[in-house]
């Protein structure tokens, strides 16, 4: 909060070659492999993928929220403010988390403390991170509830999470997340548990806050519609890797990975002419225990050949800000 903010579009967070492994007895599973992307000030990067693709694990790893004896970020770096978050002492990370980098989750009820009023939960963040006095923090909490579009903010500040609707609860977690005006907001499926009309309100709110504060947002979602309308750039994950990254228009108009193309084709769209059948991606996502040697998508890919099944493709640039991990991308 001190000093001039970097210009819009300046990189604020760089994830480089991030790898996470999970220990299972004497074996290790590679859950994330060589994950990389850049978050820029004022921008939203959509991180998309299906269940088990590693998108949530990526977020938890960069927030340093996964470290247990069994799960470990053992490769790469997460660069923020010139420092690698992965090598920061835990105390320094605690100071950063919630202040400079904040996170919101899919299910706001589990992110909130059920026995504290929501106003108090917001105030605690302000007291802890900004050293505000209790009265000032309580007053600021009401102002934040007002900012996230809650009417009767003073009254709601005294309410407990169970007294609020799902949409209201998510507004409260957003108020907590933005309380210290973070540089980065990590939003993990923030609207997945909400009804579609409430989802629209929350997405509008996040966009307004972002425009006002210039924060960078990592938006994790399985919903390509949400990404199309909210993000400027997209990274698509599959089996623990980023397999394509591009500006949103390029990704939707000219996807270059067969998986991205398959995902886009399989969405039921509300169009006058409906297809007799939806395009399917055959098969299922491979388990981490059975990842193939070559491209993890090869077994489901209509373009795959012997080379694809034996040699894993790396993410290679193919155009302006467009990179893809596919040997067959010229034919997609």
């Amino acid at each position, binding site marked *: 909060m001190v000093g001039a903010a970097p210009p819009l579009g300046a990189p604020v967070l760089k994830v480089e070659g991030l790898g996470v492994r999970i220990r299972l007895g004497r074996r290790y599973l590679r859950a994330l492999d060589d994950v990389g992307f850049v978050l820029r000030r004022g921008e939203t990067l959509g991180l998309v993928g299906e269940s088990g693709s590693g998108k949530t694990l990526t977020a938890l790893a960069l927030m340093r929220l996964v470290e247990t004896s069994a799960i470990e970020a053992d490769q790469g770096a997460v660069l923020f403010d010139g420092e690698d978050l992965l090598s920061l002492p835990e105390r320094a990370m605690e100071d950063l988390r919630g202040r400079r980098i904040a996170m919101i989750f899919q299910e706001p009820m589990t992110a909130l403390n059920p026995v504290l009023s929501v106003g108090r939960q917001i105030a605690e963040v302000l007291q802890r991170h900004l050293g505000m006095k209790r009265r000032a923090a309580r007053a600021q909490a009401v102002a934040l509830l007002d900012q996230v579009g809650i009417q009767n903010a003073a009254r709601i500040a005294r309410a407990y999470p169970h007294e609020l609707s799902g949409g209201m609860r998510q507004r409260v977690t957003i108020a907590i997340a933005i309380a210290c005006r973070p540089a980065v907001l990590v939003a993990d499926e923030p609207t997945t548990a909400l009804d579609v009309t409430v989802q629209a309100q929350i997405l509008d709110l996040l966009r307004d806050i972002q425009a006002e504060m210039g924060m960078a947002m990592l938006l994790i979602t399985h919903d*390509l519609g949400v990404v*199309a*309308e909210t993000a400027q750039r997209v990274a698509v994950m599959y089996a623990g890797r980023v397999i394509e990254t591009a500006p*949103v228009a390029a990704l939707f108009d000219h996807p270059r990975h067969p998986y991205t193309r398959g995902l886009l084709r399989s969405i039921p769209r509300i169009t006058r002419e409906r297809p007799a059948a939806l395009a399917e991606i055959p098969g299922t996502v491979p388990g981490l225990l059975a990842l193939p040697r070559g491209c993890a998508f090869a077994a489901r890919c209509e373009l795959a050949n012997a080379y694809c099944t034996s040699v894993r493709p790396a993410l290679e640039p193919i155009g302006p800000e467009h990179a893809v991990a596919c040997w067959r991308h010229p034919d997609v």
Partner: protein
Amino acid sequence: MSEPLLELRNLRKHYVTRQGLLRRAGPPVKAVDGVSLSVQRGEVLGLVGESGCGKSTTGKTILKLIEPTGGSIHFAGEDITHWSRQRMLPLRRQMQIIFQDPYGSLNPRLSIGTILAAPFEIHGTAPAEEIPDRVGALLRLVGLPSEAAQRHPHEFSGGQRQRIGIARALALRPQLIIADEPVSALDVSIQAQIINLLQRLRAELRLTYVFISHNLGVISQICDRVAVMHRGRVVELAPRDSLFFDARHPYTRMLLAAVPQPVPGPRRRVVAEAWSPLGEGALRECAPGHFVAEYSA
């Protein structure tokens, strides 16, 4: 028009709430509050709406898994509203349900073969020696190998488990399937597989579906007609094209506007039109087959 396979007349399901220390009866929760719908044989009728709108309660009440508070349910011309469990048993062969979470509805201790044999055993529709063959045929029908019968639910992915749930629903050759959010827990690539399967089965077996979903894209792909529910009532009922491209009710229009489209570009803000139901919100036909609940702006 021929006799509908299913008809709901002014169906209601109210729940009594208890409040305060003395557990006095509070105002009832009107989960379903006067729903009238008919479903033709071979048709897919969509029920769409947000959480708490009553779509799922309506589906379960059709099967009498929930007893209605009022109104009536007619199946193949017979009023089954007050039929006893005993009397319902043979009818259950003809109406089946598919749930959102197939894992929660498959007993984890039983093999798939045992799970799929149960309907034949309960209803006595196949001699014991024929059951393994019937089970194998069912599995192949839903795109699984016959050998799946030897395995247990946890060995299957979410999409495969939903195929098993569909196989179980089809075991007794029902006429009507209530599909309650059948693809909502699935990833989009798997969702497409299951929607295609349901469409293929409908054509091959001449099934009738009541398809319940909150996902308007899914509804638009599979349904012939759609009923939009709000607070226990139908606010709009129309053929698929009319509903999606000529919506008349402000609630339907808001719902459609709120769906994120997989087309890049900034979202337009959803502006809710103010409305309130007029009287009992009776349905009025505004175009052939297109009904809108009366409202005031």
